[in-house]
């Protein structure tokens, strides 16, 4: 074996013999590279600092705004609870939601006592409720109209489809000056005035039809223009008109197209006249809920009216026929 043992001194000598190594770069080159490196190093933390500052500002401002929003929400929620007891004027949406929840649970309890039939959703009585959408400033909204409110006024009711087009929701509007002989004109006026969006309903009215009085006071005559869209969407239209006219003492509606008798509906076929069915005694309660898929959705809780039911309602805060939830002073 070659060089089996090394002396430490030999190792030391060999280490000293290791060659001297030199950096081939010039001084200027090294200097320039140091400057480049310094610049790079300088800008990255600066950029990071600016970015973090920006993020902080954005997050802080969003937090402040959120906090402000929550405070408002809490405030309105507490005032809503107070107004639930007896107040009829509940205009704020939050308060309305709170009241709906209470009413909902109340009615659910009552439903246990009476027979309910969900298959008859179409047969609704006028006991319905709508949420007003305007703010507190609008004092013209009322939760309900009682008979004593109608001493110097009258009401007109129209059926408005909800925003999902599933239900026709009756809206009662209080009129100061009302001539019963002029019901249809008033109806047409209200149709053009009504702002469905504030009740959370679809923008359905006004319709491109002419409504006039028919042969007698209990008949309404509806004239369609040629190729009216309503002729295609006839199911909704007919339900809406039945709902609307049934509340205004109209028993029959007749149709014409451009003055010619009869109208050709896409689904209902050719119709000259339609009898408006009598109102079934049922109590329908509309609340605005949340759909997991589509957002807002009307929920309908209703019961078939019975004598017991009516009596119970009359004992309570709400009455039967005289009770028109959601109205507007015009």
């Amino acid at each position, binding site marked *: 074996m070659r060089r089996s043992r090394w002396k430490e001194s030999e190792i*030391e000598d060999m280490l000293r013999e290791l060659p001297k*190594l030199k950096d081939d770069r010039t001084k200027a080159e090294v200097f320039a590279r140091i400057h480049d490196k310094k610049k790079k190093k300088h800008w990255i933390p600066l950029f990071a600092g600016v970015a973090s500052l920006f993020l902080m500002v954005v997050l802080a401002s969003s937090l402040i705004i959120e906090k402000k929003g929550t405070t408002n929400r809490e405030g309105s929620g507490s005032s809503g609870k107070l107004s639930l007891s007896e107040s009829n004027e509940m205009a704020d949406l939050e308060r309305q939601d709170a009241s709906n929840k209470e009413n909902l649970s109340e009615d659910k309890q009552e439903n246990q006592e009476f027979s309910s039939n969900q298959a008859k959703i179409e047969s609704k009585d006028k006991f319905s409720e709508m949420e007003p959408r305007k703010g507190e400033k609008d004092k013209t909204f009322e939760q309900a109209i009682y008979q004593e409110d109608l001493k110097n006024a009258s009401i007109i009711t129209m059926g408005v489809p909800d925003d999902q087009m599933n239900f026709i929701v009756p809206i009662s509007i209080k009129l100061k000056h009302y001539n019963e002989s002029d019901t249809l004109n008033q109806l047409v006026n209200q149709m053009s005035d009504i702002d469905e969006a504030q009740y959370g309903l679809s923008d359905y009215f006004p319709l491109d039809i002419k409504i006039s009085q028919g042969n007698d006071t209990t008949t309404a005559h509806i004239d369609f223009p040629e190729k009216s869209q309503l002729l295609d969407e006839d199911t909704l239209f007919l339900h809406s008109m039945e709902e609307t006219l049934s509340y205004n003492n109209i028993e029959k509606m007749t149709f014409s197209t451009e003055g010619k008798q009869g109208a050709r509906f896409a689904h209902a076929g050719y119709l000259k006249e339609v009898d408006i069915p009598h109102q079934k005694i049922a109590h329908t309660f509309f609340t605005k809920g949340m759909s997991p898929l589509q957002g807002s959705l009307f929920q309908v809780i209703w019961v078939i009216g019975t004598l017991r039911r009516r009596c119970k309602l009359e004992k309570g805060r709400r009455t039967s026929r005289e009770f028109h939830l959601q109205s507007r002073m015009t």
Partner: protein
Amino acid sequence: MWKLTEFYNKIKAEVCNFCLGLTTIFMNGCGEMKDSVFHDLYEKYHQEIYQFIFYMTKNRETAEDLVQEVYIRVMKAYERFEGKSSEKTWMYSIARNVTIDHFRKQKGWKDKIFPNFDWDRQLLKDEEPIPEEVAIKNDEIQDIYQCLNRCTTNQRSVIILRYIQGLSITETSEVLNWSESKVKTTQHRALKAIKKLMEDLSGKEGHRIEKIPLERKRN
């Protein structure tokens, strides 16, 4: 809310202007001084420091980068240099710290989490090429160059500082911030380790050399 934002913007603008002003004054004032410091240090120690870092890292590019890093650190801390040790040992100690930082960065997350686990990296790792200056020397020098790589960082530091850079025990102890006796002990152990490595290496070589004549005999 709007007032708050306006106020915040004003404050931000004032602070930015102030900082910018300070930075400009500092840069203008210190720029010339720092340049002269660099030129001075370069003339005195550049090749020494470069050589030290090269023997520590065994890679030319890495050594070049780390030397630059040394200058940056030196210039940052130059005003704080108290003169307790010599300028030379101060430079060396900075160079050593820079090198150790480089080794730490080289260590991957696996090594940090499982420091004792061998990921077979020793087998897979490519050896750094021997520099030209070493390659032209005899086998023994080349062997000792390879053995240097297998010592611990502390042992290597002592060996390089003492025998390649030619520093005294005192200077080495200043660079490493150790006591002189620790330097001596580490130096002794390092030499012992190199000796053993050299013996191992020569044993293998001897075995290899023995094989060649056998083959020749057959021919």
